[in-house]
């Protein structure tokens, strides 16, 4: 890209030398002036660090060929496809280290494609060269499910990587990113996924509407595990597991469109005042949040973005053609963004001129919007096979 690195390894040079007689035989006498110069051999692009705030990783589940998951990097400003990582079977999403020095990718492989011995690893990638720096073998228990952000999360200081397991026993694999070693598993029976709440803590969502809050020690082992009372009604209006976070508050939306903020207080997640994203009239018109990655936030603007559509209850994961924007401080909707295409997953960049990205698993188009005006900036076509979760630096 901006800083191409020339790679002229020994084998390229030796091949070039060996081929020279052949190549020369092809060439007529040297050209007159003003001709374009020859291009060097073996040039491999690299990416600058730190990454642009307007880049986005589009994770591809590749449902029709699940052993060949990918994460594809696109520049929202130019629409340019910057590169990709191959992320194995049933891949969920890449996780970016806060310092930008490494990309973590939980991956599953089989010794013979779709059969044979299963090996689960966390591959560490160099973010400039998009090549493996190493890998950490973890227990072959990683959950295979529709990709969610909370399948893999980092603790706030970037030290421990938390990976959700489902065999169907539920647990969290803890990886120490400093020593680059598997630490152990934290049991979360009856509770799923991880939502970090600090440098050494996270919660999981439980089947009865409780939150299981786990505190790690500095070695990555669980030092405390507290389960709240049920905080939401699983039977009558469950929360989607697609939570988003601003500062110390996690926001979840219920199937009917009620927003549930959970804030860490006295070392435990506490439910704050809930409030509806939909008016009574809108509910009566069957407006409903939906999608795979249906919520996004901008912390600086303190705004929540939610994909909305009209449909009955069982469409709670359907895509929408509108994104509604809320001021989290005022608890009020401030904007509706009309989406060009079906929107199933959205993400907002973190900078002060934020972009809104949108994809849908049943399409291969990445749409890029101005997150403040809601104007469509561009559509980038041919992005993978079944794009799922969007991750921004």
């Amino acid at each position, binding site marked *: 890209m901006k800083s191409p690195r020339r790679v002229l390894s020994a084998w390229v040079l030796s091949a070039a030398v060996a081929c020279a007689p052949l190549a020369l035989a092809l060439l007529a006498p040297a050209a007159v002036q003003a001709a374009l110069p020859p291009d060097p051999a073996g040039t491999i692009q690299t990416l600058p660090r730190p990454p642009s705030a307007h880049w986005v990783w589009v994770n591809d589940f590749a*449902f*029709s*060929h*699940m*052993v060949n998951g990918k994460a594809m990097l696109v520049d929202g400003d130019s629409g340019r496809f910057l590169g990709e990582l191959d992320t194995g*079977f*049933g891949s969920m999403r890449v996780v970016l280290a806060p310092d930008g020095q490494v990309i973590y990718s939980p991956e*599953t492989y*089989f010794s013979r*494609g*779709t*059969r044979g011995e*299963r090996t689960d690893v966390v591959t560490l990638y160099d973010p400039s060269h998009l090549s493996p720096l190493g890998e950490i073998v973890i227990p072959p228990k990683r*959950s*295979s*499910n*529709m990709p*969610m952000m909370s399948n893999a999360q980092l603790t706030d200081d970037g030290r421990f990587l938390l990976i959700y397991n*489902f*065999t*169907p*026993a*539920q647990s969290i694999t803890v990886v120490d990113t400093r020593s680059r070693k598997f630490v152990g598993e934290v049991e979360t*029976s*009856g*509770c*799923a*996924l991880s939502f970090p709440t600090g440098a050494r803590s996270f919660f*999981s*969502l*439980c*089947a*009865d509407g409780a939150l299981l809050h786990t505190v790690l020690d500095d070695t990555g082992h669980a030092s405390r595990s507290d389960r709240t009372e049920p905080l939401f009604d*699983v*039977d009558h209006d*469950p*929360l*989607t*597991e697609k939570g988003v976070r601003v500062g110390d508050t996690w926001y979840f939306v219920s199937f009917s469109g009620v927003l549930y903020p959970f804030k860490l207080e006295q070392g435990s997640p506490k439910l704050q005042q809930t409030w509806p994203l939909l008016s009574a009239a809108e509910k009566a018109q069957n407006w409903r949040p*939906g*999608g*795979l990655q249906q919520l996004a936030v901008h912390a600086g603007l303190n705004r929540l973005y939610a994909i909305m559509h009209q449909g009955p209850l*069982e*469409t*709670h*994961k*359907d*895509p929408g053609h509108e994104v509604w924007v809320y001021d989290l401080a005022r608890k009020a909707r401030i904007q509706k963004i009309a989406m060009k295409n*079906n929107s*199933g997953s959205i993400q907002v960049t973190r900078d002060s001129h934020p972009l809104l990205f949108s994809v849908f*698993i*049943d*399409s291969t188009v990445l749409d890029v919007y101005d997150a403040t005006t809601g104007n469509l900036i561009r559509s980038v076509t041919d992005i993978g*096979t*079944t794009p*799922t979760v969007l991750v921004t630096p």
Partner: protein
Amino acid sequence: MKWLDSLTEGSARSLAKRTSRRGFIGTLGTILVGASGLPLLPVARGGDAADDKAKHVNDPTSCDYWRHCAIDGYLCGCCGGSENSCPPGTQMSAITWVGTCHNPIDGKDYVVSYNDCCGKATCGRCLCNRNERDTPLYVPFQSNDYNWCSGSAKTNIPYHCSTARIVAVAK
């Protein structure tokens, strides 16, 4: 059998109330996707207009087949298996998710178990998704967002297709 403990924990209560199991790629919602990964845009629930639905209600390779009322995945009947058997070379998942479907031919309601067939790449034919009463991942045994081939240590997790077995008459 440690996982069997977790099976009963936190899900038995609601499992007893809800019998829908939607399979795996529930985020596709009501979308029917053509095989070979060429997706179609969202269409009517169940895929066909009402007239066509009636026509296919007894066709095990149709999404409108009466047993498929709570299925999500590639229909094994299009993949070398049938509505109640797996294609050659696959394994049937040990865990089943149960729905209750009405059979218009005999007027009875049946408890239907949606066992996945596992151990080969996705079949790619007759993707069918009929969604009701799906729950998020934290209520696993009603969530269609899991690859349920994970449900047994002895089963290789690659998902191939889904069956719809009759377990019993519902009432």
